[in-house]
C-alpha cells in the first residue's frame, strides 16, 4: 500500500513558493517569454500550412473542418478507420458524383444496386450511414478539402521548445538549482565568518590583547540531572507527549486515508472528469439509486472508447506519454475483447480486477443514493478533487467520527421533497430551529448505519 504525500503538506508548499519566487525574480520572465513565443510561432506555422493547403482546388478548408466536426466526426476520422472508413484519399478512390450521391442518401444508392456502394456497405458490417440531404455539393467539397489535407507531421520541435519553456515557468526543475545556490551562499557566509574571526584573532595577537578565558561552569546536563524537580516535571511532559503521539499513531491504524493503489488499468479521472467534464454519474450511475456507487462495467467505457482508440497529443503529460495512455486504452480493448482493426467483439472477455480503494467494514451500512440523490451532496465532498486525480486516492478518513461530524453540520435538503414536509415541520418546531441537521433528523442513531 502506498500512501500519497499529503496534498497540503506545509513543507512542500513552502518549498514550492520559494521556488516560485526565485524563478520569477531570476530567470522566469525571460524563459516564459521564450516559451510563449515558441508556441505562438508553432501555431502560426500550422495555420499557415493549413492556409496553403486550403488553396487546393476542392474548397474552403476551414469551413470544411467545421462541417466535418459537426456532422462526420462521430463516425469518421480523416486518417484512420473508425465506425466508418478513413476519409483521406477518398477523392482518389471514388468518383466525385458518386461521393455526392452517397453522402446525400447512401441508402438509396445501395438500393439502386450500385456495386461500389454495396461493396462498401457489406465491408463495413452493413452499418447504414445516415443521409445528409441538407448538404450542398459545395459544402461537400469543403469537407473533402479538409479531409484531403496531407497528414500533418507531429510538430515535434515546436512542442519540445514549448514544453521546456513551460517547465521553467511552472518552476518544477529549478528547485534543485535554487537549493544549490542557497547552499553555496550559506557556505560562502560561513567561510566569510571564519575568515573574519581568524583575521580578528590575528589582529588581537599582533596587538598583544589577551582574550580572557571564560570561567568553567558546570555542564548543563549535570545541573539538570541534579535538579530533581525539573527531572520529574520534564519526564511527566515526555510521558504525556509520548502518550499523545502514541494515541495519534494508534488511531490511524486501519485508517487508510491517502490509500492510492496501482490499478490494473491506469484510468485517469483527471482526463475524464476533469478535462472532458464527464458527469460522475454518467459512469457511476448506480450511485443515484443504490447503496453502491458501482464500478462502471466495461460496456460503459466502450460507449465512448469504441470511437476513441487513442488520446489527443495534448492529453499527454510529462509523466505519462501519449503512448502510455494509448496502451491503457488497448488494455480496455483486450478486456472487452474488442478488436479495433475489425471493429468487432471477439467474445473473449477478461473482467478487470480493480483494487477497491474505499473499504468500509461490513458492519457499517452506507447508501450512496441517500447522499447523492436525496441529500444532493457533491461527490467531491467525500471523494475530494476527483477531477484532478491522475490516480485516485482515498481522500476522506472514512472514520465514524468523520461521518458523525458531517451529520452534525449538514442540513437536510427538504426542498421539493414531500417526505420531509411533515416531519421537518414538527421536528424543527420541537428543536426551535429553522433548518434541521442530519443529526437532529436521527442521523446519529447507531442502528441507522449498523445492522
Amino acid at each position, binding site marked *: 500500500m502506498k500512501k500519497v504525500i499529503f496534498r497540503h503538506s506545509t513543507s512542500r508548499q513552502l518549498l514550492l513558493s520559494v521556488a516560485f519566487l526565485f524563478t520569477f525574480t531570476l530567470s522566469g520572465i525571460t524563459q516564459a517569454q521564450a516559451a510563449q513565443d515558441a508556441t505562438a510561432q508553432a501555431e502560426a506555422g500550422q495555420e499557415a500550412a493549413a492556409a496553403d493547403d486550403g488553396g487546393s482546388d476542392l474548397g474552403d478548408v476551414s469551413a470544411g473542418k467545421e462541417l466535418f466536426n459537426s456532422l462526420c466526426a462521430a463516425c469518421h476520422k480523416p486518417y484512420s478507420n473508425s465506425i466508418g472508413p478513413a476519409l483521406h484519399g477518398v477523392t482518389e478512390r471514388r468518383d466525385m458524383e458518386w461521393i455526392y450521391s452517397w453522402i446525400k442518401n447512401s441508402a438509396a444508392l445501395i438500393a439502386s444496386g450500385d456495386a461500389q456502394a454495396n461493396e462498401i456497405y457489406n465491408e463495413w458490417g452493413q452499418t447504414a450511414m445516415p443521409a445528409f440531404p441538407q448538404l450542398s455539393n459545395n459544402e461537400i467539397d469543403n469537407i473533402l478539402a479538409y479531409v484531403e489535407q496531407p497528414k500533418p507531421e507531429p510538430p515535434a520541435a515546436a512542442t519540445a521548445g514549448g514544453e521546456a519553456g513551460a517547465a521553467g515557468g511552472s518552476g518544477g526543475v529549478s528547485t534543485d538549482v535554487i537549493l544549490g545556490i542557497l547552499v553555496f551562499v550559506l557556505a560562502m557566509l560561513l567561510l566569510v565568518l571564519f575568515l573574519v574571526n581568524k583575521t580578528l584573532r590575528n589582529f588581537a595577537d599582533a596587538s598583544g590583547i589577551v582574550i580572557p578565558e571564560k570561567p568553567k561552569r558546570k555542564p548543563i546536563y549535570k545541573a539538570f540531572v541534579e535538579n530533581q524537580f525539573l527531572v520529574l516535571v520534564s519526564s511527566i511532559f515526555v510521558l504525556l507527549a509520548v502518550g499523545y503521539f502514541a494515541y495519534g499513531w494508534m488511531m490511524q491504524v486501519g485508517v487508510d486515508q491517502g490509500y492510492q493503489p496501482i490499478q490494473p488499468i491506469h484510468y485517469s479521472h483527471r482526463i475524464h472528469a476533469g478535462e472532458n467534464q464527464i458527469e460522475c454519474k454518467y459512469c457511476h450511475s448506480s450511485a443515484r439509486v443504490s*447503496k453502491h456507487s458501482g464500478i462502471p462495467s466495461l460496456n460503459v467505457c466502450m460507449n465512448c472508447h469504441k470511437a476513441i482508440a487513442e488520446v489527443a497529443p495534448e492529453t499527454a503529460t510529462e509523466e505519462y506519454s501519449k503512448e502510455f495512455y494509448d496502451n491503457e486504452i488497448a488494455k480496455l480493448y483486450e478486456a472487452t475483447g474488442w478488436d479495433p482493426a475489425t471493429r468487432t467483439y471477439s467474445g473473449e472477455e477478461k473482467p478487470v480486477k480493480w483494487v477497491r480503494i474505499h473499504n468500509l467494514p461490513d458492519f457499517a451500512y452506507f447508501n450512496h443514493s441517500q447522499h447523492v440523490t*436525496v441529500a444532493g451532496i457533491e461527490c467531491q465532498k467525500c471523494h475530494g478533487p476527483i477531477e484532478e486525480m491522475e490516480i485516485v486516492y482515498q481522500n476522506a478518513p472514512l472514520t465514524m467520527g468523520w461521518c458523525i461530524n458531517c451529520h452534525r453540520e449538514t442540513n437536510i435538503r427538504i426542498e421539493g421533497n414531500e417526505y420531509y414536509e411533515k416531519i421537518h415541520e414538527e421536528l424543527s418546531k420541537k428543536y426551535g430551529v429553522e433548518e434541521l441537521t442530519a443529526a437532529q433528523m436521527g442521523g446519529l442513531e*447507531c442502528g441507522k448505519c449498523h445492522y
Partner: protein
Amino acid sequence: MSSNKKYWKSVEELNENSSVVEALQQKEFAENIPVEDFLGDKQNLEDSKTSRRDFLKYVGFSTAAASLAACEGPVVKSIPYVVQPDRIVPGVADYYASTIADGFDFASVLVKTREGRPIKIENNDLSKFKGGVNARVHASVLSLYDTKRVKRPMIEGRNVSWEEFDREVTSALDNASGDVVLLTQTFASPSTSKLIQDFSSKYGNVRHIVYDTVSEDAALNAFQAKYGRRALPNYDFSKVKTVVGVGADFLADWQGGGYDAAYAKTRIPKDGKMSRHIQFESNMSLTGANADKRVPLKPSEQKAVMSALRGYIAGGSSTSDLPSNIDDAVVKAARELRKAGSGAVVACGIPDMEAQTWALEINEALGSQVMDTSNARVIRQGNAAEVMQLVEDMNNGSVGALLIAGLNPVHTLPNREEFIEGLKKVETVVDFTTRADETSEVSKYVAATPHYLESWGDIQFNERSFSLMQPTIRPLFDTRQFQDTLLKWAGNNVSYLDYIKETWSSDFGGQPFSKALHDGAFEATSPVAIAAGSESLSGSRSSSLEDNLEGEGFELSLYTKVSMGDGQQFNNPWLQEMPDPLTRASWDNYVTVSEADAEELGLENWHDANGGLNGSHVNLGLGDTVLKNVPVYIMPGQAKGSIGLALGYGRKAGIQEEMQTGVNAYPLYRNFSSVQKVKMEKTAGVHEFACVQLHNTLMGRGDIIKETTLEVFNTKDAHVWNKTPEVSLDHQETPVTSPEVDIWESFDRTTGPHFNLSIDLNACTGCGACVIACHSENNVPVVGKNEVRRSRDMHWLRIDRYFSSEESFTADLDKKENIGGLGSSLSEFGELEEPAGNPQVVFQPVMCQHCNHAPCETVCPVAATSHGRQGQNQMIYNRCVGTRYCANNCPYKVRRFNWFNYAQNDEFDYHMNNDLGRMVLNPDVTVRSRGVMEKCSMCIQLTQKTILDAKREGRTIKDGEFHTACSAACDKGAMVFGDVNDEGAKILEKKNDDRMYHLLEYVGTKPNVMYQTKVRNTSEA
C-alpha cells in the same frame, strides 16, 4: 528439649536399603536425565535443520510479520461486469414471480434476487391461488445452493456430456424391449402433460405413472368415483362458519395444503362472530391445536365418527356404536354443521376411500359453499395402484425402460426391496433428479435437473388457477430440465419455454405472455379440463382402513411435519433446525405416544443435567419390518392406543453427515396408507433430543397468554377479560400503563415513523413460515443439534407453544388463583407443570419486543444496544463486547449469543461454511461473528429501505409499505406491522383494539410488539 521425631518424605525412606534414597541424597533426580544422549551426540545436533537460533529467528519473524500484517488492511479486489445486464443494479434487489411445484409443495411465489442470485422467497400477492407459501417454500431458496446437488449428467457414476448422455439413452430407449415407463411426481403442468403425450407417440409403448410420495390416493379415488375426474375438491375456507376435521391436518399438508391462510381469517372475531372448529384426531396436529374443541380418537374410531356424521347429516343409519361421550360430541358437531348450513364443511383425512366418499356426501348434503367440486384441485394426481402394479411389472421383466422424475422411490416406497429387485431387471433406468439420493445411486443414467428457481414451467393448481415458473438465476451446474430433455428425446428441437408458449397459443388467461410472467399467475376464463391423470379407475385395488388396521398393536398415524414435509429438502439446515410447532424438537423425528400408553410401557421423557430432553427408545414392528430404536416423545393430546411418526426423515444417501437425522418411516407406509397397526416395544438406550422448549405449561400465568371465550368477549367489558395489570402506588392499585407509576423518562416519539408489530393469537396457527422467513432475511446462523440441545439456538423469532394443565387455560388460572396454604401450593403447582391428557394449545410468536423502556439497554456497559426514535431497539454488533448482561436482564429471553463463529467454521459445516451456501446471505445484513449478542432488529434494513425509497421519490409513505420479514411471510394476517404515528394505519387500529395487550405488561417495559388476546369459540350449538 530436642525432639527425636523423624520426618520422612516418602515410604521409600523407611526402607533403609533403598538405593533410591541414597541416590537422592547425592543427586536431584533418582535417575539420570538423558542430557548427554540428547546434546552429547554432536552428529545428531548438526544434522538437525533447525538450530536454536533459527527457532528464535522464526519466532521473531512471525511476531513481527503478524504485527505488521495487523496494521495493514487487506487489498480488496472489485470486479465489475464486462457487460452489465440492464436490469441489474448492484445493491438493488429485483423481484421475479415464479412457482414452486416439487410434487409436494405447490405455490405461487415472489423471488427476491440480489446481483442475480435468489436470496429470499416471498408471497405472490397477485396470485388468486392463496396460501401454500409455508416454511418449506420459504426455505427452498437454500436448497438451490445445496452442495449435494447432482452437478452434471452421469452414466454409471461417470461424468458425461449431455450429447453423450442423449446418444446413449435414446439408443437404449429405441432398443427397449418392453414398456417405457415414466414414473413422475405430480407435475400439474398442462405443457408437461402434452409433452409426455408427444413423447408417448414417438415411442409408442409409453406408460406414465404419477406417484405422490405422500399419497392422497383414497381422496382421489373417492372424487374420481363420484365426479369422474381424478382430482381433489377445492375448499374455500374463508367462507367457513363451522368446520369439522376428522383426522385431517388441513392447516398443514392435507390434500396439498395451503388452506391455513383462508382459515385464519375466519378466526378473528368480527362483529361478535368467528368460525367454530371441531377436530377429531389421533395425533396432536397443528390443526387440532388450533381447534376450539378437540376430541382425541384413534383412526379406527375416526372412521366411526365419519360414519355417524354421515348418518346424522346425509341420512342413512343414524345410530353409531361409539362410546356415549364421543357420540354426544358427534351429535353436537352434526347439529352445529347443520346450523352453519352453507358455511359448514367436513374435512376428512382418513386414508380410506369409503370415509372420503362420505365426506363428499356430507358436504353435498350440507350444501357447503366451502367445498367446490367444480374447480377441483389437481396438485395431487398420484395413483397408488399403478405404482404397485409397476413394481410387479418390473419384477416380471415387462418394463424395458424406467424414467424416474422428481422422485426418490428407493427411499420412499414402502416396498423398497421389491423395487430395487425390479430395478435390476429393467435395462434402462434414468433418474431425473436435482439431488443425489438413494435412487440416483442405483440408477444407471442420472440426468441432472435444475432447481425450480432455474427452470421454466406452467403449473395448474386447480381448474381455473394457473401459475408460471421462471428461472431467476442461470443454472449453477450443468443441468437440464426434465422437460427439455424429454423434448429432445421426442425429437422436438424447441426449448421448453417455446413449448409452453405453443401450448397456450400465447394466450395466458386473456393476457400476453409477458404480463402473465410478470404477475406469475393467471386465471383461466373458463374451467380448463384437467390435464393428465390416469384414466384407469383403481378404486378396487385401493386398500381400506380396516385392511390396514388388522391385528394387534397401536394404531400408528404417519404424518408430515411442517418443517420437513415429505423429506425432499432433507439436506436443508434451516428446515432441520426449525423446531416442530408442537413438540418444539428440532433435528429429529420420533414416536409420539400418549401419557397413558407411555406409563403402561414404561416409556419416559426426562431432562438431563444440562437441561436437554432425553427419551426412551422403542422398536416399531409392522409384519417383518421393524424400525429399531425410535425415540419416544410423550405427547399431550395423543389419543390413547394411537401413536404418531413423521415421514420424511432418516435419509442417508447424498446427505451431509450432520443432517442424517431421524428414522425412515416410509417402510411402515404400507399400501400408501398413513394409518397402520404396529407393535411397539421398549428397548434399551437413551435418545437425546434437541428441544427448544422444555417447560410446556403456563401454570396459570395470564400475563403471558391472555385468552377468553367468544361468549365473554361479546358480553363483557374489555377490562374483565383483558385487564391491565396494576401495581401499588401509595397503597393504591394503579394501572401499570399510567405515567405516575413510570420511573422512566419517556422520549417523544410522535415525530416520524414509530413502528409497532401486532400479533394476533387468534390468527396465528403456529405454522412457522415466519421463523424461516426471519432466518433467510437476517442471516441467522444454523448451530446444529448439539448446540440446540444446549439451548444455544439462534432463532430470532421463536413460536412458543403452551399446553394447558387442566382442560383449558382458564381452568389453569382458576386453579392457580385458588391455591391456598403451603400444602396446597406444593402439590398443586407441581400438578400445574404437567400438561393435560387433551390440553388446550396456544401458539405465541415471540421476538425482541423492542421495549420503549428496555431493560437490556440500561445494563450494557458499552452502550452496544440503544433505542431509536422509530421504536426499534438497536443492536450494534461492532460495539458489543459480549458481556451478556443484556440477555440476562431481558424478561422475554429473546437475545441470542454467538458462542462461536458460525460462518466459515468447519465445526458448523452448514450453508455458511461453503461458497455455494453463502450465496443465500442477505448482503444488507451483517454476518455476526463470535462473541457478540444478536436479536431481532425489527428488520431495520427493510424499514430503512422503505423510507429511503420514499425520500428518493419525494413522497410520503402509505400504510402497508412498511413490513418485516415475518409480517410479510404471514399470509394469515396474524402479524401486522406499521407506523403508529400514521393516522388511519391498520396497526393503529390494532393498537387501540380491546384485545390488545403487551407481553408481561406489569414489568413496565412498554414494548412495541403487542399481542391480541386469544378468543376461543366454545359456544356449542
